[in-house]
């Protein structure tokens, strides 16, 4: 019985340790903060979101704060793209964001040698007659059952 207790206590301690290190890890989700609580550096990166920051969902705010950690590692072009797309992305509904991620995954699965230059392909797609695009859009219904 004493051995069983010691084993149980050891397992509890192990379970606690499993939880404890990530909490102190830099990769753990950041704390939700109001605009005025952000650092000057974070405010500079997230400037396009300043107006709506306090109205965003706490979960979304945490994601953006987390993004500021990645931001310095991005290429200047990547940083510029994030700056220009940030506001639009934040204004999308959760369902739209989910759909965009789903489409990103679908497009990424097409081998690069077969999909060619994506910007070129997007231009060609936009040049299609509206009826044809509408037909394509209606054949690909959004997956409402996807989890993300």
């Amino acid at each position, binding site marked *: 019985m004493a051995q069983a207790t010691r084993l149980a206590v050891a397992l509890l301690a192990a379970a606690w340790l499993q939880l404890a290190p990530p909490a102190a890890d830099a990769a753990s989700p950041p704390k939700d903060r109001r605009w005025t609580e952000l650092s000057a550096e974070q405010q500079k990166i997230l400037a396009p979101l300043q107006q709506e920051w306090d109205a965003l969902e706490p979960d979304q705010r945490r994601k953006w704060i987390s993004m500021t950690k990645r931001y310095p590692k991005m290429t200047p072009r990547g940083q510029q793209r994030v700056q220009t797309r940030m506001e639009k992305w934040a204004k999308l509904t959760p369902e739209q964001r989910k759909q965009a991620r789903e*489409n990103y995954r679908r497009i990424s699965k097409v081998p690069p040698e*077969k999909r060619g230059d994506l910007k070129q392909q997007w231009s060609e797609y936009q040049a299609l007659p509206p009826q044809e695009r509408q037909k394509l859009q209606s054949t690909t219904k959004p997956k409402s059952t996807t989890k993300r």
Partner: protein
Amino acid sequence: MDHEAQFAHRLRPYLNDGARVDARVAARLRAAREQALAAYRPERHDWVALPAGAGGRLGGLRTLWLRIVLPAVVLCAAFAATFAWQQQQRAAELEELDALLLTSDLPIDAYLDQGFAAWLKRRASQ
């Protein structure tokens, strides 16, 4: 223990023979024996501290605590740890994906268009 009991059994008559004492000594011995019995407490092994107020049938409660409550607590803690870890992983994956999407060559509109991915896939298979 059996050997000890047999020895005690054989020893008893000899002790009884030599234990003929007067009434005063017998009374003092009886009082001392009763006092010793009153002070006697069976030895208990408290391996695990029981929750406060868990009096009563200690044996049954201790078994319940060791065999059911403690393993259940350990199991719950393990589940909670796994769930928290999975949530964290999922959030990290999502962040990674969002970063890729926001820095991609294509504008957000391209990913919001339901037909584009289908059109691209169809073209690639041609």
